[in-house]
C-alpha cells in the first residue's frame, strides 16, 4: 500500500466534506428543517407588524424595520451559534470511542470543529437562501446596512461561532467526570436564550441586569453581531466588543485545554 502524508488542512477539509455529505444524506429532514426556520420568521414578523401597527413609533431604539431585521437574523443564526452540549464529544468519551480518535494524527478539538463547520454550512446556506426568499417576498421593511458594515458583521459572526464552539466543547468535556450530563444541557437551555439576546434584544433589559450579563461571554454570541449589523455598535463600543470576543476566545481556549488534559488522565476505555 502506498503511504501518503496528509496535511492537517487536508484532514480538516475532508472531515468538513464528510460532514456535509452526512447532513445532505437525510434529505427529508433537511427540507423539513427549512420549515422550522420559516415558522418563527412568519410568526415573529406578524407579531411585530401588529405591534407597530398599534401606533408604536420606536421601542428602546428599535424601529419596526430594525426589530424585524434583528429577529430574522437571530432566527437564522441561532441554531448555528447556539452553544449547546456537543453530544458526539460526550458520547465519544462515555462509550470509549475516543480511544480510536486519540491514536489518529488529528487534533480532537479541530476534528470536532470541522464536523460542526460541515453540519452548519449546509444548514446555514440553505436557510440563508430561504430567508432571502422570505425577506424579498414578505418583509418589505428589512433593514440593509451600508456596505462597510457587512465585513465587521461577518467577523463578529465568525468569532461568535468559534466562541460558541469553545463553550460547547468545554462543557461537553464534563463527560470525563460524570455520565449524566442532561442537567447541564437543561442549564444551558435556561441561560443561553435569555443572556444571548435571542428572546429579546438586551437593550430592553434593565441596565443592572445587562451589566451582569455582559460579564459573561453570552451577549457576544448573538446580541453583539446583530448590534454590529444594525449599527448599534460603532467606534469605541465596536472595538470593545471585538476585543471582548477575542479575550473570551483566549480564555475559553485555555480552559478547554486544561479540562482536556485533566480529563484524559481520568479517561478509561473498556473493551476492544
Amino acid at each position: 500500500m502506498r503511504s501518503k502524508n496528509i496535511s492537517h488542512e487536508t484532514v480538516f477539509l475532508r472531515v468538513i466534506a464528510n460532514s456535509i455529505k452526512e447532513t445532505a444524506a437525510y434529505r427529508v429532514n433537511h427540507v423539513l428543517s427549512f420549515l422550522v426556520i420559516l415558522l418563527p420568521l412568519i410568526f415573529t414578523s406578524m407579531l411585530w407588524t401588529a405591534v407597530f401597527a398599534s401606533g408604536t413609533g420606536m421601542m428602546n431604539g428599535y424601529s419596526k424595520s430594525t426589530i424585524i431585521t434583528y429577529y430574522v437574523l437571530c432566527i437564522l443564526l441561532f441554531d448555528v451559534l447556539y452553544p449547546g452540549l456537543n453530544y458526539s464529544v460526550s458520547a465519544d468519551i462515555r462509550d470509549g470511542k475516543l480511544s480510536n480518535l486519540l491514536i489518529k494524527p488529528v487534533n480532537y478539538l479541530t476534528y470536532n470543529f470541522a464536523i460542526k463547520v460541515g453540519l452548519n454550512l449546509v444548514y446555514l446556506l440553505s436557510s440563508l437562501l430561504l430567508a432571502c426568499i422570505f425577506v424579498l417576498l414578505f418583509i418589505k421593511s428589512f433593514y440593509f446596512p451600508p456596505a462597510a458594515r457587512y465585513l465587521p458583521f461577518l467577523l463578529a459572526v465568525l468569532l461568535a461561532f468559534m466562541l460558541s464552539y469553545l463553550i460547547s466543547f468545554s462543557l461537553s468535556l464534563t463527560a470525563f467526570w460524570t455520565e449524566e450530563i442532561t442537567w447541564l444541557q437543561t442549564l444551558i437551555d435556561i441561560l443561553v436564550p435569555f443572556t444571548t439576546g435571542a428572546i429579546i434584544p438586551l437593550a430592553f433589559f434593565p441596565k443592572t441586569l445587562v451589566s451582569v450579563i455582559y460579564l459573561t461571554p453570552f451577549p457576544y454570541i448573538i446580541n453583539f453581531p446583530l448590534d454590529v449589523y444594525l449599527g448599534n455598535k460603532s467606534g469605541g463600543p465596536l472595538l470593545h466588543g471585538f476585543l471582548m470576543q477575542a479575550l473570551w476566545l483566549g480564555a475559553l481556549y485555555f480552559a478547554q485545554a486544561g479540562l482536556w488534559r485533566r480529563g484524559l488522565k481520568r479517561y478509561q476505555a473498556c473493551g476492544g
Partner: protein
Amino acid sequence: MKHFLSVFRVSLRNSIYRELQFGLNFVLQCVGNILWLGFSLFFFYTIYQHTGLINGWDMYQTFFLININQLVIYMYQIFFARNISQLPGLVREGTIDHYLIKPIDLQFLVSTRNVDFKPVFLLPLPLFIMAHIVKTRGYAFSGRDLALCAAAFTIAVLIRYSIGFMIAAFAVLFTRISALNAIQNEFFKYAGYPAGIFTQTQQNFFTFLVPVILIANLPASFVLGLLPNRYVLLLYATLYSIILLLLSRIFFYKVLGKYTSVSS
C-alpha cells in the same frame, strides 16, 4: 375502563420512581420551565410598555393566553410527550413486541406507558396567574363558559396528542425526522400568541387548516369573552380533534402493518 385505569396506575408508580433517580435534573428542568414562562411574560410585558393594545388584546388577556397555552403544553408533557417521542425507537429496535402481546389497546398502551411528573409540579403557577388575572381584571363569565373553556382545553390537548402521535408514526418510516418534531413544537409555541396579530385570512388559515388558534385562543376566549364565533369554533375543534385522532390511529396501524420484528 377499570382495566385501563389499573394499567395507568402502574405506569404512574413506575414514573415516580424513575423521576426521583435524577434529582438534580428534575429540579433544573422545573426551574427552566418556570423561567421560560417568566421569559414569555417578560417578552410581552416589554412590548406592552410601548403599546396599550395589540389589535384589541391588552396585556392581561395576552398573559392569560400565554398561561393557558402553557397548561396545554404541560398536560401534553405529563401524559404523552415522552411516550410519543419513544415510539419510533420502540418500532425500530423491536421492543414494541412486548406491547403487541399485551391484552390492551396498543395505541393506548404506547401513548400512556410513562407519566412525566415534572410538569405536575409546574401546574400551580400558570393556574395561579390565570386566577389572579381573572380576579383583578373582573372578567365576567358564567359556569357554562368555564365548562366550555375546560372542554376546549381538553380538545386542544387531544389535537396536540393526535398530531404528535401521527408525526411519531411517520417518524417510524424514516431514519432521521427530528425536524418534524421541531415543526410541531414551533407551531404550538406560537399558539400562545394573541389571534389579534393575524389578518383575517391568516386567522382562517391558522384556525381551519393549521389549528394554532384552536389550541389556546379558543379556550381562553370563553373566559375573556374574545373571538365572537367561539361557539362555532368549539364545534369545529371537536370535529377536527375526532378526525385527527382517527387519522392518527389509521396511520399508526398502517405503519405497523409494515413492521417486522427485529428482536430475538
